[in-house]
């Protein structure tokens, strides 16, 4: 995931629930009331690009002792809605029929970041299986190609499945469909 990758930037902007473990003077604008401090244990939604850093670095100044290696980080991330047990159960029940786009439009990218952050191998295996199941479905849709304008219109309209794809799946679908279509066109006309 590159620095200049737009999808990555957009994915990093989605918010995750956090709990502050310190009182922070002057940071009230994060909670919407500028000028006031943030209280300890207050919960709020922070974009992932901010939350990820704050969950790693800790406040060693103040009451903390300087030589304490394991300083408590500023915030504690709690599990966001999209990785909740409800969603995981829905994935296990039938990944191909899940409306991933409404769960989160950058689901895979966020899942990878989340798994990397917490070393969550269990979630990893659930999502790897989900990738497989949905990919097969996706390939089926991508490989049904109409060459003439009328046919391709019909296949473009597509099934409800295409509306449930997350952004990276859409990219895969587009590239795979393009490839199948170019090949078929070459085979037929040339």
């Amino acid at each position, binding site marked *: 995931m590159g620095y200049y990758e737009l999808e990555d930037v957009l994915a990093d902007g989605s918010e995750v629930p956090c709990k502050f473990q310190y009182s922070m003077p002057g940071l009230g604008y994060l909670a919407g009331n500028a000028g006031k401090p943030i209280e300890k244990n207050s919960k709020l939604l922070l974009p992932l690009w901010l939350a990820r850093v704050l969950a790693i670095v800790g406040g060693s100044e103040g009451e903390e002792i300087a030589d304490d290696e394991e300083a408590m980080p500023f915030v504690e991330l709690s599990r966001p809605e999209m990785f909740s047990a409800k969603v995981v159960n829905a994935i296990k029940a039938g990944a191909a029929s899940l409306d991933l786009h409404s769960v989160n439009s950058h689901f*895979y990218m966020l*899942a*990878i*970041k989340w*798994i*990397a952050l917490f*070393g*969550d*191998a269990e*979630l*990893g*295996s659930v*999502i*790897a299986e989900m*990738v*497989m199941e949905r*990919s*097969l479905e*996706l*390939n089926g849709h*991508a490989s049904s190609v109409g060459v003439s304008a009328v046919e391709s219109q019909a296949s473009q309209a597509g099934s409800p499945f295409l509306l449930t794809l997350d952004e*990276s799946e859409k*990219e*895969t679908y587009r*590239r*795979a469909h*393009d*490839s*199948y279509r*170019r*090949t078929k*066109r*070459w*085979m037929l006309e*040339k």
Partner: protein
Amino acid sequence: MSLPDHLQSTFSPEEIQFIVENEPIKIFPRITTRQPARSGAKGGSPPIRCTLITTDDASINQLVATRSSEVALWLALLLKQQNKCSIIAPQWLTLQALDRSIQFEKTHPDRFSAMPWNWLVLAQLLFKRAPDDFHDPVHDLRSKVQDLREIRQLKVLKGLRHLNESHLQLDNLSLLEVNELRPFVLDTMDRLREIHSAANQDTIQPAPADQHGYPEPL
């Protein structure tokens, strides 16, 4: 970027055709380009010689009518276009050989038959550009090739269930077939690999073998 988006990680079918056209193929020339030894010293217009830098030009300058010879496919197609040769179809492009391949595909559901890497492209090119040079009726050959393609597509579809984050073995899959699968397979395996490496980046003990073990052979 300077290279169009759809060409950045793969070939277009036209580029595949270009690669295939570089292969040698046998032809029956209908012209003679070999100079008789005696006429060399005589006057008159000097003979026109082909001087090629990407392929062997000795064979094109030594053609004798109806004596088979081997030239690059692109050259054969150019000559064929002007009715100066007929192309000899390769051994595997006969009804008998195709039937054998189809039989093999049917009896071995777990592997692809040993077609040459360019079979689909070469068959398409010859059907289109040299349909009168086959011993067998072209429409029969066409339908056999189509049968073979469909059987192999079915196997590919079956094989995609075994995608994983490490590798895939695709013996005897031809270039055009690989090329049309490339975007899908690479994207999916890339995603699996990202998830796998994210989950296993800092675990000291190896990953559980039953979940992320070796793939079943295709």
